């Protein structure tokens, strides 16, 4: 028999045979579906894997490997070798659902304590994650996380943070991580007007790069209650016709602080969008899990509404398009649940 050139085999039904005379069990569409199932970046499609891989016979698998250059390569070896970085990638994708399940099941205090630890142990450090934890949790919830942190690591959050940052960042982050804010609705209107003016002066009139040296800006943001700060935000908008966080745009940690304290749904919807856009980092991708799992019982309705308003598509739709398998189903179910509450 002459050596025939490798040709693309049109596979329609199981009755087809490949050149070696072996039966072909899967269609090109199924191959494509399988490829997608392995490609992330938000989980794996277990269903495809289950159905299609089982159907495949060795010939199909060879075909699949030969037609998936992103996953396999055979330049150096006599076989289609699995690319090692993809192998690592795939391991991580399989674990996404596991991580989501663990985060959902774990006690919120332990979960948040672990996240605090992670925020400053990652390189580069994730200041916005620390700010998110300190500012979007209630005083009691974050206090619980601080207790859990001590239990897990035999040191306080304050010690841990203070020794890893310096200067202005230390003053802001340690203050945010240690403050025990009043959670009630009582506010002093006269004081709010005064402090709104202080902020306005510091931000609008004094040079922007002096803000870090301004004790009053730090004091107001790190000690006043959330309701107080939301009211100041309104007052600022009325007085200066701009949003406080936008005016603090130059200093990311201040901008994140204001967002997390005054309008968490806006902050969270941005993170969700980033996670599902093109080219996010692994940290940004993991944020999808974190935000959905941690907010389903808190303000998912508001986040979804804000997401829809800002990005023009319902959150659930975006997740269904971006994520795969059990991971996708889990996230969508949590969002639905949060919206129903």
């Amino acid at each position: 028999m002459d050596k025939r050139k490798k040709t693309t085999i049109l596979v329609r039904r199981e009755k087809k045979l490949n050149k070696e005379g072996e039966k072909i069990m899967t269609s090109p569409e199924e191959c494509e579906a399988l490829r997608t199932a392995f490609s992330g970046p938000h989980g794996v499609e277990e269903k495809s894997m289950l159905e299609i891989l089982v159907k495949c016979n060795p010939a199909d698998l060879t075909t699949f490997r030969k037609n998936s250059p992103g996953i396999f390569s055979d330049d150096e070896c006599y076989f289609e070798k699995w690319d090692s970085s993809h192998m690592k990638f795939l391991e991580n994708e399989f674990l996404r659902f596991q991580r989501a399940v663990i985060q959902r099941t774990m006690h919120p205090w332990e979960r948040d304590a672990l996240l605090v630890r992670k925020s400053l142990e990652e390189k580069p450090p994730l200041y916005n994650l620390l700010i998110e934890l300190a500012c979007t949790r209630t005083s009691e919830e974050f206090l619980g996380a601080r207790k859990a942190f001590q239990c897990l690591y035999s040191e306080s959050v304050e010690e841990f943070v203070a020794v890893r940052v310096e200067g202005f960042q230390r003053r802001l982050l340690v203050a945010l991580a240690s403050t025990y804010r009043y959670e009630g609705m009582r506010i002093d209107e006269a004081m709010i007007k005064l402090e709104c003016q202080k902020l306005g002066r510091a931000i609008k009139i004094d040079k922007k790069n002096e803000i870090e040296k301004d004790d009053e800006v730090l004091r107001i943001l790190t000690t006043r209650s959330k309701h107080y700060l939301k009211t100041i935000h309104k007052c600022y908008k009325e007085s200066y016709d701009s949003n406080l966080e936008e005016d603090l745009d130059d200093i990311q940690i201040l901008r994140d602080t204001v967002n997390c304290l005054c309008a968490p749904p806006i902050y969270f919807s941005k993170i969700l969008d980033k996670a599902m856009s093109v080219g996010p980092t692994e940290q940004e991708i993991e944020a999808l899990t974190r935000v959905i799992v941690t907010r389903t019982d808190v303000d998912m309705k508001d986040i979804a509404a804000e997401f829809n308003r800002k990005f023009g598509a319902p959150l659930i739709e975006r997740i269904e398009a971006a994520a795969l398998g059990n991971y996708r189903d889990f996230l969508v179910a949590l969002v639905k649940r949060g919206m129903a509450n």
Partner: protein
Amino acid sequence: MATHSVAEDCEQLRKAFAGWGTNEGLIISILAHRSSAQIKLIRETYAQTYGEDLLKDLDKELSSDFERVVVLWALDPAERDAFLANEATKRWTSSNQVLVEITCTRTSDQLLLAKQAYHARFKRSLEEDVAYRSSGDFRKLLVPLASTYRYEGDEVNMTLAKSEAKILHEKISEKAYNHEDVIRILSTRGKAQINATLNHYKNEFGNDINKDLKTDPKDEFLAVLRATVKCLTRPEKYFEKVLRLAINKRGTDEGALTRVVTTRAEIDMKIIKEEYHKRNSVTLDHAIGKDTTGDYEKMLLALICHGDA
């Protein structure tokens, strides 16, 4: 353990207010000998039975120093700390010291309860009031001291103790007393760790850190730093000194005397009395007896024996 009927106590207290005068002796004999938990029950029962707040009645019926010591004593410890801290944020004289005292001598959980009581009573946080009322270096130190929830474990990292003793010595030698690392170490480390660090400081550099912080006796910030160190590491010595200065002062500082007695009666008054005797060669009872009079004196004396037998 003697069982006191709460209902009886309420009845007796009510009787003490009846008529023209007030039976201060009766008030002292009951309240000075009840724990804060028992007093809490008495207040609740009194309110249920007579529809009035015991504290308000005490306020109406009693006056000046005696009233203050009774009312402070009748408050729940967390409420008491919240009240004293709030008062300190409004005053200028010695306010810094009181804030250091409350934030540094209490355990992490006691301070937390005080902060919760502060929320409930003043509808603001302790941190925001301390921050608002202080400025500059004082704010940089006092706000973290008020916010921190220190780790209370006994484990100590000796390597860390060595390196942080070195940092402290360096900054103090440079007179950089407000350096962010000095503040960091004193306001975030657990008490056991700080103790180890300061022991190492003395071993390595020869002096107690407070000796090195005494370079300018008029510098208020240095005084606050020294108080911080003392409160964190040797509270009983700190309280002995406050009592000594309060009593020896011309005219007596009743505010300080009342504050220390009411806040420590259930905690470590026995040790403080021992320290006082060691340092002053007379007992605290004797000194208070000489320096105060009347019902105020009687209440103080009853309280400093509160835990005994």
